[in-house]
Every structure is written in C-alpha cells, then in structure tokens.
C-alpha cells in the first residue's frame, strides 16, 4: 500500500468554445494521484460555471487519443476537453 499521497502534473489544452469560455488555451495543473478525467472536468466546471451548457456534448482526449471519462490521469498526460467537432 502506498503511504505517500503523491501529486502529478498534467497539461490541459483548450479549443474552440471551451477555449473562448475559459479564456485559456493551455494550462499545467497538479492533481492528486488517482484523479480521473471526470474529476478533472468537475474541477473546471466549478471554476468555469459558464461551461455548464457544453457539458453533455464534451468528449475528452488523453495523449491525443479519445478517452473514457473514468480513465485515471497519469503524470505528464496531455488532456483536452473537446467540444463537438466541425471540420470539413
């Protein structure tokens, strides 16, 4: 059993509507080991309530691959909350 509660650092990227609503394009954050992508979204939802309307349409990427919300974050991960895509 690990006795030290360690924290890990991850990089978040912001695009489209999420970038505009938060005013952020990228940010490094520290999270507790064991944090999931859903936990991290929660944190941003509290900090930026203006994201609430987007919530149901967001997907998440981890290290440039679509990921499940219950995925645990690892040190050095690159994460992005992605609004609906509209290329083409």
């Amino acid at each position, binding site marked *: 059993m690990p006795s030290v509660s360690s924290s890990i650092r991850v990089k978040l990227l912001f695009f489209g*509507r999420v970038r505009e609503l938060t005013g952020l394009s990228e940010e490094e954050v520290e999270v507790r080991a064991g944090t999931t992508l859903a936990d991290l979204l929660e944190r941003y939802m509290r900090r930026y309530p203006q994201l609430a309307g987007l919530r149901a349409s967001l997907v998440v990427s981890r290290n440039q691959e679509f990921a499940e919300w219950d995925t645990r974050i690892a040190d050095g991960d690159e994460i992005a909350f992605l609004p609906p895509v509209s290329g083409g």
Partner: protein
Amino acid sequence: MPSTPDNDLYELVRTAIDSAALVEHVRAEQDGAIVTFDGFVRNESHGRATKHLEYEAYEPMALAKMREIGAQLHEDFAIHRLAMVHRLGRLEIGETSVFIAVSAPHRGAAFDACRFAIDTLKRTVPIWKKEYFQDGAVWAEGEVPPAAPEAKSAS
C-alpha cells in the same frame, strides 16, 4: 497490387490548398480512377449570410486522426493512394477548406473510400469552425465524436 500507405499525404495548412497538386500526388499508372472531394466555404449558414470562417485544430491529434482514417481506408477499400488536406485559419467564401483525393484501380472503391473519408473526418477529427456573420459569430454546431471505442485504460 498491395496499397502503399507510405505515399499517402496528410496535411494541415494555412494557405490555399493546391488541389491539382494533390490529384497529381495520388495518380499512378496502376490506377484507373481518382475521386476527389472539394469542401469549400458556402456564402450562407442556416439562412444567414456568412462573411468568412475561421478554423482551428488540435493539430497533432487531428493529423493522427486523419492518418487513422487513411489506414482504415486501405483496410476497407481497394484503393491505391490518398491525399487529405485541411486548411486552418481564416477562409473567405468559395475557398477550399478540405480536399481529399483517392486513387484506385477501379472507380467503385475510389468513390466509396472518398465518401467514407470525408464523413469520418467530419465526425472524428478535432477541428473547429467559427462562422462570422454581419452581426456576430458562432461556433458551428458540430458533431460529438464517438466515445473512445477502444480507449486504453490508464494502468
């Protein structure tokens, strides 16, 4: 003849797309058909006159997703070569935002693959479009990419 994915071309660019060069890129003597898709900026959106568009992308992921589409095409269709280019930044009415060219020995595979490529790009590649009108701007409605089909678990 086996396909040669090595010669496929995937790009995100910030200047005008040279579609003729892309068609030439996929053309080879072993082929008998090239099908292209030219997506360009329409002058209206839901009845509102569009002034211009702006595209942005999560660039490394977008390129990775474009390459995945290409790999899928080679698996599912008897095609030879593929070129897929998306433009980013500000685009004016009539300018090409996306161009896809697919070559194949026979037309059926080229048509099917090209259609699959653009449909899949619009659903899965992290690119976003903002539409500018006389009286404001909105992010295009967009499509929610399918949730990670084979998401790798963290541990």
